[in-house]
């Protein structure tokens, strides 16, 4: 998925044929720290999805063993939500997209 937060490197070159100036490198002013902040993949409780179905989805999407998948499923069921994975944004987006494909209520949350 495309998104606008990626760092942009823009090379500005003047059209002077005889001399080649050193290119100006412009960068967005986002700090390295901001890019390093992980994103959580959160699954929320809903009364429709079956517990066995949710467990199967966690196993398939994250490759978790059944016990771990069941632990997360029960956390969703009892606490209303569970953080399934944390890490870089692109991968987190991919996980949320897959979870939506299975019709689970899932969101991305930026760690603050």
């Amino acid at each position, binding site marked *: *998925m*495309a*998104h*606008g937060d990626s760092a942009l490197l823009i090379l500005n070159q003047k059209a002077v044929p005889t001399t080649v100036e050193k290119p100006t490198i412009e960068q967005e002013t986002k700090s390295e720290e901001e890019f390093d902040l992980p994103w959580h993949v959160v699954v929320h409780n*809903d*009364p*429709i*999805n*079956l517990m*066995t*179905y949710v467990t*199967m989805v966690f196993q398939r999407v994250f490759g978790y063993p059944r016990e771990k998948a069941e632990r997360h499923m029960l956390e969703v069921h009892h606490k209303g939500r569970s953080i399934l994975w944390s890490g870089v944004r692109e991968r987190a*987006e991919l996980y*949320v*997209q897959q979870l*939506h*494909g*299975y*019709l689970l*209520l*899932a*969101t*991305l*949350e*930026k760690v603050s």
Partner: protein
Amino acid sequence: MDICRENDALQISDLDPFLAELLRQIPASTNPEGLPAAEQRIFSAPADTKQKQLCSEWKTYVEPELRRLFQSATETVTSDLAQLNGNEKSLRNCTLRIPLDHADAWLNALNQARLVIAAKYAFTESELNDHYHSPVGSRRDLGLFQVNFYGFLQEFILRELDNN
């Protein structure tokens, strides 16, 4: 109604006309059009609404892919349900054979249908957990029965996938 595994397929036999009709209604029940609550649930937001750019890009790039995925699952189920065509007037019980390769499509379409019906009638959690609710006396009661019946089929499919 009997439901069992037959080689590479799931077989629902002795299907009475009422349950056969509920199965035939799966594809139509997956359609959230005209039901904003259902549309919102099927295509839920990927993040807090404060993440405006993320949500708007999701609508542009991801939602169409999800629509295609859901549509494809529904089409697979529709083609399997063609086995039940021609039995509308018959009172004889019939059989439906679902190839195991189609199990994921069935799980998806049944889930779409359950979510849309639940959103349509705004069932509460306690209503959804009341699996012994009876009798079916209104369109809403029938909706609840449908949600539970489709859930029962999902449980069976999941069990067979697990045994596979």
